[in-house]
């Protein structure tokens, strides 16, 4: 179902990222889970898959964090009024049963963190974060948007803020140092990074990555989100997968 959604605000978070807040005008059939996504319809323009960045089940407000890369995302930033939300799509992650989670984001992979950490707080766990970007001006203070975070590491490739290098190198280091802390590792970002995150966390209890492919219908019909050569559809079977399921197609 396409849920009508009114844009309430849009905010520039950094040189690269925006955050938009929508109010769903109808209650969704079920509540979303962290790492599920929506297809957001920008009337007359496009429909784009976006991670649920945060969701408030009481007033049906939903936020996304996004980068402007083309017409659709430009419309998300610049237009006001009504949009449409198709969702909630894909599988999410259930945080219950975990006590400490390591979330590793590359670039806009940071988007799903606020909702993940909110749910983690509810189920009694803490999320530590490694967020890597290319340049320091792309960063914003993620602590402002997410509750209940533990340690937060920023990494930049231009070495202007935080750890100098990319997120995977830092992850390798901290997992080597104190990997036993995390019962769950989740990576969201470029494929190459996900491969390294999976590799680094191979000894830990559970490790998942969230992938991206070309999502068109979002409902399992068109097949464009196929994770070739696996017989898996990102929109139904993903976007999160166990590292063991997808490791060989990463990177």
């Amino acid at each position, binding site marked *: 179902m396409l849920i*009508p959604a009114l844009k309430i605000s849009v905010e520039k978070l950094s040189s690269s990222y925006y955050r938009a807040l929508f109010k769903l005008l109808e209650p969704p059939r079920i509540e979303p889970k962290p790492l599920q996504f929506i*297809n957001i319809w920008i*009337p007359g323009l496009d429909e784009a898959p976006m991670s649920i960045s945060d969701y408030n089940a009481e007033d049906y407000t939903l936020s996304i964090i996004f980068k402007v890369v083309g017409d659709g995302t430009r419309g998300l930033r610049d237009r006001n009024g*009504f949009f449409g939300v198709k969702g909630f799509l894909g599988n999410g992650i259930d945080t219950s049963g975990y006590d400490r989670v390591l979330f590793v984001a590359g670039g806009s992979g940071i988007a799903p963190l606020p909702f993940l950490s909110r749910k983690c707080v509810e189920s009694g766990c803490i999320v530590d974060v490694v967020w890597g970007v290319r340049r320091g001006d792309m960063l914003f203070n993620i602590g402002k948007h997410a509750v209940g975070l533990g340690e937060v590491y920023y990494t930049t490739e231009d070495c202007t803020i935080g750890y100098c290098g990319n997120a995977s190198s830092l992850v390798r280091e901290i997992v080597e140092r104190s990997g036993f802390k995390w019962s769950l590792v989740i990576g969201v970002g470029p494929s190459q990074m996900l491969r390294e995150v999976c590799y680094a966390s191979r000894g830990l209890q559970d490790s998942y990555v969230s992938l991206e492919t070309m999502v*068109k219908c979002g409902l*399992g*019909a068109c097949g464009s989100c*196929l994770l*070739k050569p696996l*017989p898996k559809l990102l929109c139904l079977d993903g976007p999160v997968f166990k590292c063991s399921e997808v490791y060989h197609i990463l990177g």
Partner: protein
Amino acid sequence: MANLGIRILGLNLEHPVLNASGILGSEPEHVDILVKHGFSCIVTKTITLEPRKGYPPPILIELDNGGYLNAVGLANPGVRGICPMVERARLLGRPIIVSVGGGDLREYVEVSIKAEECGASGVELNLSCPNVRGFGLELGVDPSMVYRVVRDVASVLKIPVLAKLGFSDKVIESSGRALEAGAAGLTLINTIKAMYIDVYSAKPVLSNKYGGLSGPPIKPIAIRVVYDVYREYRALIIGCGGVSSWRDAAEFILAGARAVQVGSGFLRNK
């Protein structure tokens, strides 16, 4: 245990439930997925001579009446996509029917020949796609065009030819013409041309504006068409439109179908 096996088109199928064309079926991996879901025979996405990218999103929405509206724009890999899918189906021990589209007679014939060369078990001529100008719908509503397409294809093929027709004023007549022209059977029906306008933004939602309505809303119409056509010709009919339970399937069988195809009923139905 009840034996649900049927024999149609020279094939022994374990049960009478096939997938409907266009639900996956354009990549070999899609064939894996469809087989895993248990369909007794695989039907590919409609294939055209050249690859087609299809329309930009939105291409499919779920409606609040329980149906779906789609305008995928016949996105498909073109004839080069056929052999890999047929091979995958063979590997998995399932027959496969290639759905064939075309902008003209020649294209239907060429794609069908390719399907036979690749070893497909049959072809299903899509004479009823409501979403792409020049592909299908205009043909399906003209019984003499239906006759010509089916005749041209059936006369050069050894494998059986199904004609897939949509709901139209002349669907009974077109069905008769297709059978006359050598179709081994009919698939009835395709989606029905429709539209959904979002009242908040005052815009049609699909990028193509129009789309094909499928799912439970069209079932009573499909049942009627199958009933009428079966009563008229006692032909092999594969019923399609809104099947989402054993009861829907049984209803089609009672109306005169030998088998059914499931499209929308399978969406998000992991």
